[in-house]
């Protein structure tokens, strides 16, 4: 049972870590200073949430494991983040589209996780929800600003949402581990969050004068991340993230 719980915590932590890492790549490259600072702040919140989760996993596993064991010493196939989060940042609209889809998901997910039968996860959810509320406001406002902006910004925002849409479905498709956790009252039923998520996204897209991506008739979406089957991008992220620890194992500063 503990084994499944650790696997589940790892999936949540990996989502936050990889999203945070991607956003941190904007540091020093934001289109304007305020956006640069905002994206770095949001990256920090996500990496902070990942730390709380890895730390919890390390406590359960014991055996000399620490919060650093998981991000630095696992390989691509052991990471269980959703594919959406490892996609390259692309242009600013691409990043904002990814943030809108994920922030909205996290908002409803953490709201539900606050009621987890696992007290520690409930506490992490309570803390993270406050932060995600800011993230969601930031990404939603930018979708509206770009969508209802110039012809060029509108086109880029529309393309960005269309391109990321097919990766969002995986967030709501429970893996075997998630099903087990849902059964035990530890995880919220993510499948049930999809409607309210979609409705909220639709409202934002409408306010941004954009059109809603055509939903795929067969409900097909890109998936694999939760099982450890990733796009080629994750390996490059890990090469960057793990370089120092792989070169000088367990080095400290």
């Amino acid at each position, binding site marked *: 049972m503990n084994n499944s719980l650790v696997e589940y915590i790892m999936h949540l932590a990996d989502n936050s870590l990889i999203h945070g890492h991607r956003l941190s790549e904007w540091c020093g490259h934001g289109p304007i200073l*305020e956006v640069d600072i*905002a994206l770095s702040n949001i990256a920090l*919140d996500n990496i902070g*949430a990942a730390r709380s989760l890895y730390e919890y996993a390390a406590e359960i596993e014991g055996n000399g494991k620490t919060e650093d064991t998981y991000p630095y010493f696992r390989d691509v196939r052991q990471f269980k983040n959703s594919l959406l989060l490892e996609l390259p940042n692309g242009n600013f609209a691409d990043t904002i589209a990814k943030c809108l889809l994920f922030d909205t998901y996290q908002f409803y997910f953490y709201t539900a996780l606050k009621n987890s039968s696992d007290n*520690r996860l409930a*506490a992490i959810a*309570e*803390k993270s929800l*406050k932060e995600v509320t*800011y993230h969601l406001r930031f990404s939603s406002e930018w979708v509206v600003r770009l969508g209802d902006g110039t012809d060029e910004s509108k086109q880029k925002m529309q393309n960005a949402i269309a391109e990321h849409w097919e990766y969002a479905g995986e967030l709501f498709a429970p893996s075997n581990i998630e099903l087990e956790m849902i059964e035990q009252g530890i995880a919220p039923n993510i499948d049930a969050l999809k409607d309210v998520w979609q409705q909220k996204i639709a409202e934002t897209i409408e306010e941004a004068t954009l059109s809603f991506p055509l939903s795929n008739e067969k409900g097909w979406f890109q998936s694999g991340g939760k099982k450890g089957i990733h796009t080629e991008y994750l390996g490059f992220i890990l090469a960057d993230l793990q370089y120092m620890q792989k070169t000088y194992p367990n080095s400290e500063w």
Partner: protein
Amino acid sequence: MVSKEKIYSYLENVSDPEVPVLSILDLGIVRDVNINEENETVEILITPTYSGCPAMQMIAMNVKMEMLTQGVKNVIVTEILSPAWTTDWMTESGKRKLNEYGIAPPQNKSNEYIPIEDLIVPCPICQSKNTSVISEFGSTACKSLYRCNDCLEPFDYFKCH
């Protein structure tokens, strides 16, 4: 063995590394102090402000250093996540010190949502209420950036959380 009151008086000397005019008591992050007479250990319970706030590690270290200076050797700093920290826990004297330092203190309670365009944040320099938000995210996780339309100075706002 040292008293709880004494420990609190020592904690008054530990400041927030990012806003040095505030002690960690002003900030409201110290939740409790447990004194264990048997093994002569003092446990200090602290709530982090923001998840990724790099100041937390420094605060924990500064707490230990301060206790050591005061002759309290066995100190454990424990982080607790729930209930989550809120700016409501910041003391009134803390808010006053912030304002004098040039950072506008939180204006509302954390459970009352005020849309950012309706929130009035007085300028800490000239007290004018004619100010506007430049960026919701500021130089640290806890702040937003504002500008005063009267004295034209930019200033930080310690946002409500």
